[in-house]
């Protein structure tokens, strides 16, 4: 035991997997025991079986897949809009103090506003259609993402830029052929992390005047006092978020094998 509790000493991979699974398993057993023994009112915490049942029911009537699909589309589009804007703007902010001075105060201001505060405005501006939901996801994601992209770009070491300049590369060329390729793996990390944040705003975006979606189902289940459907929604969101995270990590390793051990 003591040999596994050394500062930063890596664990054997099997043990690492086992540890994570043990903790999850223990939680599950505790949960099943608490609900199965009747110690906890199922209205507050439904039994695992009730959630499986809700999942089967949701699959049978098609609502679960339908909600998941619509939420996935919203997440993807909202996050893509944010990312497509954040990459060029963040790159400019991280490369040219001019653009940073221009935009940083504005971004810094918006960034500290709670996204729920934008719900009334978003309805006022866009009504209750799909755009209103995407705008909330965008606001929640973009203003963080753009600053992180700018930081990814700033991580490119100064000597690399100066060295390139002495080899005769011009500013624009350095931006395109040195800064961007260097910063790409870091940008992938940023995209992965901010995709997680987009997920966290899903329930908020689907809270208002939505008719479908996982967030909407969760809100609806609250109204109908159906806690097993709330937990089902939470599990599906957590699971999809985890899967997207793992896919992103695998993609980064595959696309940028050189980036292991490079500061980003």
């Amino acid at each position: 035991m003591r040999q596994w509790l050394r500062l930063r000493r890596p664990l054997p991979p099997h043990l690492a997997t086992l540890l994570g699974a043990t903790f999850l398993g223990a939680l599950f057993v505790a949960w099943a025991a608490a609900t199965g023994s009747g110690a906890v009112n199922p209205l507050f915490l439904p039994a695992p079986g009730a959630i499986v049942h809700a999942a089967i029911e949701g699959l049978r009537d098609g609502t679960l897949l339908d909600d998941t699909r619509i939420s996935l589309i919203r997440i993807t589009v909202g996050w893509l809009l944010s990312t497509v804007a954040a990459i060029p703007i963040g790159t400019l902010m991280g490369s040219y103090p001019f653009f940073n001075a221009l935009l940083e105060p504005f971004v810094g201001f918006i960034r500290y506003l709670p996204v729920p505060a934008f719900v009334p405005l978003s309805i006022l501006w866009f009504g209750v259609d799909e755009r209103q939901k995407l705008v909330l996801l965008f606001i929640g994601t973009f203003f963080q993402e753009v600053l992180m992209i700018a930081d990814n770009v700033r991580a490119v070491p100064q000597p690399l830029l100066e060295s390139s300049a002495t080899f005769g590369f011009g500013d624009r060329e350095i931006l395109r052929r040195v800064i961007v390729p260097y910063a790409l793996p870091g940008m992938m990390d940023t995209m992965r992390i901010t995709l997680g944040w987009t997920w966290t705003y899903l329930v908020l975006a689907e809270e208002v005047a939505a008719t479908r979606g996982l967030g909407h189902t969760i809100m609806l289940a609250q109204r109908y006092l159906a806690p097993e459907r709330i937990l089902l929604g939470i599990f599906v969101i957590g699971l999809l978020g985890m899967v997207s995270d793992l896919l992103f990590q695998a993609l980064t390793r595959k696309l940028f094998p050189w980036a292991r051990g490079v500061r980003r």
Partner: protein
Amino acid sequence: MSKAGRLILTSLRKRFRLADGVMEAVAPLSLTIEAGQFVALVGPSGCGKSTLLRMVAGLEQPDEGRILLDGRPVTGPGPERVMLFQSPALYPWLTTLGNVTFVLTKRIADRAAREALARRYLREVGLAAFEAAYPAQLSGGMQQRVALARALAFGPEVLLMDEPFGALDAQTRSLMQELLLRVWRENRTTVLFVTHDVDEAIFLADRVLVMSARPGRIIDDLPVPLPRPRSLDVQMEADFLALKRRVLTWIRREIGL
């Protein structure tokens, strides 16, 4: 190779604005470096030797004075003055070979010719077997050898070196010094080499310039008459030690010992 690379620095001066006033980094300084000369610049830390080098590279603008390279004024960075830093400054997404050929695109249009030249210099620095490796897979000394091969293959008129071996261990540093001299003997580019290592300066250079404490002026200009090719053993000879004593005396005086 044609004899290009004559540097003339005239009344060069550089000040930096700090929070509590103005700091004079380089006092008015004039200097001529002949084409093909290997010049080492030593001085106490913070004396402005790196600033001087960066002005020649075009990475800093002088406040006064001017720099001429073969009669043309220096106004910014340019491919005739390549700079080598203490960090190797390699492109991490490119292989060893790719790092060299990437900069050679500025000089040579033909891809096969670029690769042939790059391979020649990688062989020269003993990295032929590592041409497909990425920088992160190489040790610090190997990375700096790639950077050296890249700069030498590029063939600038002037090679500016800012403590390029300063981060390496003593053995690797000696190897790099011998390597640099061997390759330099063939292409005889002008070298301006900043270091705080007096042994390194004398071992490498034709001429050692000693800078004063800030603001930097040149307080001594010593020719190094040691015959070439030099081996590391030269560092134990009387002529070498006499030069070393003279330089160290200057530096000790400048740092107030």
